[in-house]
C-alpha cells in the first residue's frame, strides 16, 4: 500500500512466505459468485470465483488488517444520475462484485482487489491456479 494512504505501518504485509504450491480442493469447492476461506499454516486466504475465474487474497484488509475475505459479498452500489444531473437513487451493479471487510466496511472489487474510491488501498493478492485436479494457491 502507498504510504500516502494511511499513516499506520501494516506489518502483516511483510509476513514471510515459502513460495510453496498448496492444494486447496476440487474446483467445485468454489462455485460462481462465492468464496472459500482456507488456512495454510498460519496464513488465511480467501479464494473467490467471479465470471468463472478464480481470485485469491490474504485475509487481511488494507485498512486495519481485518478478516476481509470472511466478509459479505455484495454487488457494487451505484447511483443513477440522469442527463440533468438529478439523482434517481441507488442501484446494484451486478457485474461488479465486492468483498466487504466485516471489521469496518472497506469494499474491494473482487477482480482487482482494489477499493473503488482509492485504488491504492488494495488487498494482497495470492497466486491461485486451477488445474485438472483442482485449485492450488502459492504461499
Amino acid at each position, binding site marked *: 500500500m502507498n504510504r500516502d494512504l494511511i499513516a499506520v505501518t501494516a506489518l502483516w504485509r511483510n509476513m514471510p512466505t515459502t513460495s510453496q504450491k498448496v492444494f486447496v480442493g476440487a474446483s467445485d469447492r468454489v462455485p460462481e459468485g462465492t*468464496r472459500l476461506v482456507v488456512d495454510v499454516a498460519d496464513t488465511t486466504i480467501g479464494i473467490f470465483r467471479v465470471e468463472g475465474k478464480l481470485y485469491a487474497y490474504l485475509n487481511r484488509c488494507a485498512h486495519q488488517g481485518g478478516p476481509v475475505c470472511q466478509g459479505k459479498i455484495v454487488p457494487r452500489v451505484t447511483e443513477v444520475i440522469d442527463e440533468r444531473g438529478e439523482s434517481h437513487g441507488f442501484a446494484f451493479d451486478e457485474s461488479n462484485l465486492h468483498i466487504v471487510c466485516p471489521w469496518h466496511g472497506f469494499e474491494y472489487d473482487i477482480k482487482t482487489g482494489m477499493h473503488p474510491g482509492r485504488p491504492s488501498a488494495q488487498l494482497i493478492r495470492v497466486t491461485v491456479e486451477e488445474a485438472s485436479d483442482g485449485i492450488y494457491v502459492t504461499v
Partner: protein
Amino acid sequence: MSKIEFVNGVSTATEHKVQQITTRTDSREILANAHRDIALYHLDDYFIVDVDAHHVEFDSWAEILDHLENPVLRHNAKEMTKNWPNAKQLAFSNHPVGLTFQDVFGRIPHQAELAEHVEKTNEHRDLTLVRRAMDSMGIKMQVVFPQPMLEMGLHPDPDIVTAMTFAYNRWFTKTILPHETRVKTLLCLPFHDPDASIKMIQEFGETPGVVGFMITSQRHAGVHKNMYMRIYRELEERGLPLAFHAGPSWGDTMTTTMNRFLSVHSMSFVTCNMTHMTNWIVNGLPERFPKLKVIWIESGLARVPFMMQRLDHEYLMRQSDAPLLKRLPSEYIQEMYFTSQPLEVTIPHMLEATCKAVHAETQLMYSSDWPHWDFDVPSRIAGLPFLTEQAKRNILGETARKLFRF
C-alpha cells in the same frame, strides 16, 4: 510460520472454520487478526488501557428497568415491554432510527449485534463478551460504556432520563463492575438535573471501578451555565475526571439537511463535542476549575487543530468576550485529554501535525470503541511511525493509568 499440512504427500490447505462472519460469529473469531497483531506489534510489552468501549445493555433491558426506583415509572416501563412488540429492549430509551444504519446494512455485523454463543454460567453474558474482546486485542483494562443510554441527552422526558440513568448505573455497578477488576467505567450523569447529578456523584464517587463521570454530548445544553458549576466543583474536589462522550444526531438544524448516515456520523459526532469545548473554554471553565481533568471521547482528533486555530484567531480580536482567559484557547486545549478513536489516518503528515498539536504524548489515550462499526485496534497506535516509543507507551495506556490512578 508453522508447517503446511500434507495429505497423501501433497501439501494441502484446510477449510477455515468460519467462512463468513455474521452477527452470530464468536468475537474471538471476528478479532482473530487483532489477536495475531499482539505478537506482530509486540503489544504484550505495553500496558494497554482502552478508554472507550461498549457493552450492549439491550439484552439486559428488563433487568435495568427493574432498577427503576419510582414504582410508577417502573410500572409504566414494564407495561411498555409487555404490550409493544419492539419495546422489550427499548422501553423508555431514546434509540433513534439512524443508529440502526451504523452497520452499513449488514456489511459490519458486530455493530448490529454480538449474538454469539456464550455458555450459561453465573457470570453475566456481557462480562464474558467484554473479556473476550479485551483478550483478543491485548487490552489490560477497559473503560466500558453503555450504548442506547448514550442517547438519553436528547430524550424528551427529563424525569425518565434521571430515573433511567440511576437505574442503569445501579444495575451496572452491581451486575458487571464488581466482577472484573479489569473493567472500569465513567458513569453517565443526569446532567440536565444538577441536584440529581450531585446525588449520582455522591452515591458512586467512591465505588471501586468508577474512575470518573461522563456527560453524553448530544444534548442541547450550554455547559457554561451557572446551574452546572456545582457538578464541576464536586468532581474537582473529589479529583474525579469529567468526560464528554460524543454521539450522533440526525435531528438538529445541520444534520436534518443530510441524507446519508456517512454525513451525519462525520459531522454530528464531532460538532457536539466542538460545541461543548467552545463553551467550556470561552467561558473560562479551565480557569474556574483548574484541577478538573476533562476528557473528550469519540470525536476523533482532526477537528482539534481547527478549533485551536479558530478559537485563538477569534479570541485575539474579541478578548472582551472571554475575559476569564489568561492564555490562548489553544493552550487550554493542550491541557485537556482526548481519546484516539476514530483516528483519522488518511493524510499522514496531517495526523502527525495533529498529534503534535494536541500534545499526544501526554494527552492522548487509546480507545477502541469496540464493538462499534468504526472501532480501532491497538496496532493503530503501535504502528504510527512518527511516534516515539515512549509516546506509544503513554497513548496505549500509561497516560490513562496515571489519569485514572490504576
